[in-house]
C-alpha cells in the first residue's frame, strides 16, 4: 500500500472495544486511537493496546484481553465480532475496515473476559455427534475401503472447519432459549458419514442429531453459509443431513 505508507505515522485508527472484567460483570466500551501502520490487522492493533494501554482520552486502562494462535485463519481462536460481523481478527485487515472499528466478543458463547470466549460447546458438540472415525480394534483391522476421488473433493471442503463458532454466532436459532447444536457439527456429521470407514457408524451420528437440540433446530435463515470464513457449504450439508435423518426415521419405523 504505497499511498498509505507515505501518509506518515501521525495517522491513527479509531477502535471502540466492548469489554468486561469477569464472566458475569456488565459489559462496557472503551475507545482507543492506535497509531496506523501499513498492513496492520485487528490482532496487531490489540497488541499495540497491550504495549500501551491508553484510551483515546489519554487515561490509562488495563490491556484488552484476547485469544489468538495461528494468525493465519486456520485455528479459529481469534473469532470476534468486528463491525457487526463475526469473523477472525487475524484476517481482518485494518485497510479493509470502516472506522471507527467496533470490536466485541461473540456473545453466543460465554464471555470469559473482554474478547475471550469459551468455545467449549463446539467441542462438546463434536463429541456428541461422534465426529471421528473409530478404527481401534483388538487386532489389526487392515486398511479401510478407499474413498472415491470425486467424493474426496467435496468432503475436503467440509474438513476445513476450524470450529471457530462464527456460524453459531450468525445463527438466529442458537441462543439461550434454544438447545440447537448449530450448523458446524451437522456439517461434520456429513463429513464423517461420507468417509468409507466412518460410514459404518453413520447411524450413530444421525441418531445423535435426531435427539433434542439436534438438526430440527435449524430454521433455514442460511446466515451460516454466508458467514463461514472457510466457505463451507453449510446449508447444503444441513439439507443433505435432513434427507439422511428423514430416511433413517422411516427405516427405523419400518424396522429396516
Amino acid at each position: 500500500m504505497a499511498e498509505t505508507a507515505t501518509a506518515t505515522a501521525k495517522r491513527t485508527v479509531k477502535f471502540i472495544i466492548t469489554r468486561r472484567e469477569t464472566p458475569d460483570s456488565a459489559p462496557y466500551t472503551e475507545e482507543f486511537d492506535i497509531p496506523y501502520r501499513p498492513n496492520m490487522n485487528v490482532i496487531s492493533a490489540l497488541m499495540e493496546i497491550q504495549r500501551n494501554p491508553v484510551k483515546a482520552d489519554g487515561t490509562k486502562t488495563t490491556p484488552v484481553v484476547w485469544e489468538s494462535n495461528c494468525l493465519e485463519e486456520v485455528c479459529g481462536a481469534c473469532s470476534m465480532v468486528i463491525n457487526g460481523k463475526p469473523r477472525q481478527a487475524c484476517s481482518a485487515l485494518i485497510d479493509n475496515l470502516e472506522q471507527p472499528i467496533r470490536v466485541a466478543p461473540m456473545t453466543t458463547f460465554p464471555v470469559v473476559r473482554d474478547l475471550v470466549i469459551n468455545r467449549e460447546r463446539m467441542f462438546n458438540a463434536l463429541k456428541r455427534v461422534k465426529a471421528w472415525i473409530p478404527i481401534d480394534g483388538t487386532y489389526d483391522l487392515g486398511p479401510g475401503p478407499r474413498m472415491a476421488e470425486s467424493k474426496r473433493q467435496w468432503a475436503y471442503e467440509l474438513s476445513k472447519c476450524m470450529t471457530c463458532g462464527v456460524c453459531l454466532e450468525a445463527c438466529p436459532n442458537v441462543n439461550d432459549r434454544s438447545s440447537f447444536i448449530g450448523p458446524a457439527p451437522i456439517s461434520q456429521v456429513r463429513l464423517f458419514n461420507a468417509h468409507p470407514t466412518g460410514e459404518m457408524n453413520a447411524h450413530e451420528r444421525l441418531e445423535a442429531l435426531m435427539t433434542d437440540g439436534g438438526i430440527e433446530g435449524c430454521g433455514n435463515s442460511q446466515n451460516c453459509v454466508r458467514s463461514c470464513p472457510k466457505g463451507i457449504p453449510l446449508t447444503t450439508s444441513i439439507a443433505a443431513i435432513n434427507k439422511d435423518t428423514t430416511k433413517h426415521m422411516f427405516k427405523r419405523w419400518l424396522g429396516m
Partner: protein
Amino acid sequence: MSGNSFLPRKIHSLLGVIPLGLFFIEHALTNYSAFEGGQEGFKDSVEFLHSLPLIFFLELFLIWLPILFHGVYGLYLAFTSNLNVGRFNYGRNWAFALQRISGVFTFIFVIWHVWQTRVQVALGNTTNEEIGQHMHDIVTQPGFFILYFVAVIAATFHFANGLWAFLVSWGITIGPRAQKVSSRICMGIFVIVAVLFILSLFAFRGDEFASASAAIGSLSSAVLG
C-alpha cells in the same frame, strides 16, 4: 423443550403442507369463486363443501387439530428464535424473520377470523348461505378491509415460504441451485395465491354481495367504492 423434539418438528413441518397447505389452496379457490362466479359461484362452492360427507370429521382432522398443533408449536419455535436481520441483512434471513412474524400474525388473525365467520355460523348469527353477505358487511368496513388485506398477504407468504422451507427440511432441495429454483417457484406461488385472495376480497366488497336487509352496509360500500 425436553425429550426428543425431532418428531414433533417433523410433524409440524408436514402438517404445514399436508393438510394445512392444501386447505389453504382450497380456501383461496373457494373465495376466488366469488370473483369469478359472483354471488352464485361462491354460494355453489360453499354448498359443495358443506355437502361433503363426514364434514365435521373432515374439518376436525384436516383443519382444527392440524392448525392447533402447527400453530402452538409454531409459536414455540418463533419464541425460540432471535431476529437478527439488523446484523445479517440477507434475503433468506429476512424470509426467516418474516416466516416467524407472519406465523404469529396469522395465529392471531385466524382466531379472529374463525370467531367472525365459523363461530357466528355455529351461533346461528349467520348461515352458510348468507356467509357471502356476511363477508360483504365485514370487508366494507375500512378497518376490517385493511386487516384482511394484510392478513391474506401474511398468511400467503407464510404458506409459500413455508413450502420452500419444507423442501429443505425433508432434504428434497439440497444444493444451492435447487434451493434457488424452488425459491423462485414458491415466490411465484406466493404472488398467484395472494392475488386470488385479494381479488376475492374486492369481490366481497361489491354490491352484488350486499344483502337487501343490510341496506346500510351497501350504502357505505357505495360511498367507499
